[in-house]
């Protein structure tokens, strides 16, 4: 599968994401700058990495979500291309309306940078099928605005349709997210947004490779 990474001013996890995709797939992803207006149709996975696009001015991800390339991301999402947003990328996907809800300031107001445990609550998605349902994996988080919020009706729909893919496990919710939500998919199952950073736990040098399965799933790599 061919992957692409969206680049925006202020992102700082783009290189980590490119390194992870290159390491796991064996091929460097294409990079796409924010002012481009189309994404090649042979791209199978579009990743919006983490960081602080536009310095988090106005609201996290709000300005990035209105850049020209995002219209192309919406078109690719509608066409079924896999789209993955991590951290600021998740905030951008919510601001674009590709996923429901909003990410607010962490409930305790502190920036959080540590490792958390995630429960894989749905192992049937294009982003989680290398895991078992109920499996608990480790994953780093680093954010100030990761407190997921959605109204009751939206939450009931997300839960009812099993669109919560990752949940903070064992009482380790680092930001106050409602229902311990760490990652969700869209209705079509081809758009994933998550606050934790799986690209930072993909090899022994990172202290573990628990994040690798997300990329192996998303890239649809042949199972070893």
């Amino acid at each position, binding site marked *: 599968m061919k992957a692409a990474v969206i680049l925006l001013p202020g992102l700082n996890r783009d290189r980590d994401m490119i390194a992870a995709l290159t390491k796991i797939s064996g091929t460097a992803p294409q990079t796409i700058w924010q002012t481009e207006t189309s994404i090649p149709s042979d791209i199978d996975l579009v990743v919006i990495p983490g960081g602080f696009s536009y310095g988090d001015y*106005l*609201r996290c991800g*709000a*300005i990035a979500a*209105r850049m020209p390339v995002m219209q192309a991301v919406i078109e690719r999402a509608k066409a079924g291309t896999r789209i993955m947003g991590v951290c600021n990328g998740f905030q951008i996907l*919510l*601001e674009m309306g590709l996923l*429901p*809800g*909003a990410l*607010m*300031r*962490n*409930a*305790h*107001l502190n920036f959080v940078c540590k490792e958390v445990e995630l429960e894989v609550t749905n192992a049937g998605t294009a982003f989680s099928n290398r895991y078992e349902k109920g499996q608990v994996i480790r994953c780093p988080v680093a954010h100030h605005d990761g*407190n997921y*919020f*959605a*109204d009751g009706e939206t939450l009931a729909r997300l839960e009812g349709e099993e669109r919560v893919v990752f949940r903070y496990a064992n009482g380790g919710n680092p930001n*106050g997210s409602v229902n311990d939500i760490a990652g969700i998919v869209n209705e079509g199952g081809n758009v994933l947004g998550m606050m934790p950073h799986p690209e930072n736990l993909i090899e022994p040098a990172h202290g573990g490779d628990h994040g690798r399965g997300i990329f192996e799933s998303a890239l649809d790599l042949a199972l070893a």
Partner: protein
Amino acid sequence: MKARVTVTLKNGVLDPQGKAIESALGTLGFDGVGSVRQGKVFDIELDHEDRAKAQTDLTAMCEQLLANTVIENYTIEIQ
């Protein structure tokens, strides 16, 4: 023409920053503060005097960028 747009969190949405400010006001000895909600103010200058157009444009600005209507309300005052 000048306009002021105020964006605040909707009722029922937890406002952690407002809560922290509320608690700090108590620490400073201000009693009688029921609750604090924080928000944002945008002062926008428009280079025309057409109030109807201003109202339409400012509403569109709020809906498209200035407010996240999932969690925020906005009010528009044209001066």
